């Protein structure tokens, strides 16, 4: 953790007669959960989508949400963004209750959140550059700064050459990666991935997972990763990113040097959470439904 030189050799001098303590003690940044759901219920007409869902995403944690298609996973993401409102329950982001927030009140919350949509959801009348620059344009940022940020993000997703292309010229995987670049603008501390690898070939899906791992480990982002592919769960819960002296990123498996504790799994079934915990427990669960989901039989 610390090298010998970094540990302070002397303690700071404290004058015991003049210590000031604030009335309101600020909790350390890491203790406040990034996202918190408390007993959230939501139904569309007669169909119950979420039935008393409660969970917490700690800061720097990646929560993988598993479940059958149409099981309420995307709904959770839409609730976090305020695109939907729950019928009952509370949703907190950075300790702020956003359950009753109107559209304009959600704007400042959405500044902290980056969303990667299932099909990328790029604006098809805008080029890749304009898509990624979207948020900065709305904030009337200077053109040079916009270009710098856009290039930085496209480099992160390895798509700088596509900068002037239109979305319909890109493959599905490239569109997904541009969507990630667009979501990362503004360095949001919370990321939401909605089935980001759906329909992609395994190597491309792996690339998307590597991006998520980089963001988690190198930039301390808190995120929710909705998926139904067990490969993604395996990558996210058992690999971590390291940077060597040259700035090259590589991915190592846990167990060699350390065990990952910043990624956990939630499984949804019929609007309820039936599992919450580490991937090891998931793989060893005796529940037949979970076994069928994880192992396919």
């Amino acid at each position, binding site marked *: 953790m610390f090298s010998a030189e970094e540990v302070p050799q002397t303690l700071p001098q404290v004058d015991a007669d003049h210590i000031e303590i604030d009335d309101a003690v600020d909790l350390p940044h890491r203790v406040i959960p990034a996202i918190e759901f408390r007993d959230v219920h939501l139904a569309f007409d007669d169909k119950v989508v979420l039935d008393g869902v409660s969970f917490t995403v700690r800061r720097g944690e990646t929560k993988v949400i598993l479940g059958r298609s149409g099981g309420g996973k995307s709904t959770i993401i839409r609730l976090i963004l305020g*695109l939907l409102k729950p019928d009952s329950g509370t949703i907190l982001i950075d300790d702020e209750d956003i359950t009753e927030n109107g559209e304009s009140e959600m704007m400042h919350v*959405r500044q902290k959140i980056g*969303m990667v*949509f*299932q*099909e990328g959801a790029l*604006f*098809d009348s805008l080029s890749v550059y304009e898509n990624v620059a979207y948020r900065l344009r709305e904030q009337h940022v200077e053109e040079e700064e916009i270009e710098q940020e856009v290039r930085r993000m496209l480099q992160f997703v390895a798509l700088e050459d596509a900068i002037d292309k239109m979305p319909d010229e890109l493959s599905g995987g490239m569109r997904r990666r541009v969507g990630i670049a667009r979501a990362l603008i503004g360095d949001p501390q919370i990321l939401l991935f909605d089935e980001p690898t759906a329909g992609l070939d395994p190597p491309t899906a792996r690339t998307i997972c590597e991006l998520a791992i980089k963001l988690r480990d190198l930039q301390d982002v808190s995120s929710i990763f909705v998926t139904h592919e067990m490969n993604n769960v395996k990558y996210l819960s058992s690999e971590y990113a390291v940077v060597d002296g040259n700035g090259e990123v590589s991915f190592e498996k846990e167990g060699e040097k350390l065990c990952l504790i910043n990624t956990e799994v939630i499984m949804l079934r019929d609007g309820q959470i039936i599992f919450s915990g580490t991937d090891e427990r998931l793989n060893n669960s005796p529940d037949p439904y979970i076994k069928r989901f994880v192992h396919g039989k």
Partner: protein
Amino acid sequence: MNPLTKFLFELQEISLLLWSVISGLFRRPRYLDEMIRQMDLIGVGSLPIILLTGFFTGGVLVLQTYPTLQFYGAQSESGRSVAVSLIRELGPVLSALMVSGRIGSAISAELGSMVVSQQIDAMRALGTDPLKKLVAPRVIALFFMLPLLTVASDIFGIIGGGTVAAYVYEQDQHVFINSVRDGITANDIIGGVIKPLFFGVVIGGISCHKGLSTTGGTVGVGVSTINAVVLSSIWVIIFDFFLAKAIQTVLGVGL
């Protein structure tokens, strides 16, 4: 939901949409450049079909009514009859129907496609209000452009009528022009411009609402577009009746 409930619900949604457009104009951001771009697309873009419609409508009016007027010896009034019919009724309504078909379908298809491909959600997630960025520019553009298009249509209609009168019925063009000038009053013109203001808002409100409430994938986009055009057209015609009556009462036109 029974039809009446559905109708009231739709009416509520469209009213809320239009209200948010108006109230949104008082707060930043205002997308002025988007509004101007839409005015160009809607106004300048529709000009060719509007002028054609107007010209041939005016022409066919004279074609059909001249013989009847001639029967009563009133053919010198041909200019007045065409001008009044166009300015009060045919200009506003036909222009609105043309725009409803061209622009109404374009708006609902464009917004509907954005909904089904999650672009509207993405817009909201990135901190932009779609009502301000997409709906308001289109409704405002229709509000300003439709009266201008209507006037252009009226003018070309009178020209068309005059052309038919001159070349088919060999009427002296001065007779025609004088008759036009005598026949129109300022109130006719005011009434003929007020109607398109309402029609523009109706077309914009209905098309944007139908587009943004699209469900069901690409099939849904087609359904929304059909509904947008049909409903806009029907409501233009219904509003036309009530507006005509209101204008008659308030301005004393047509009495």
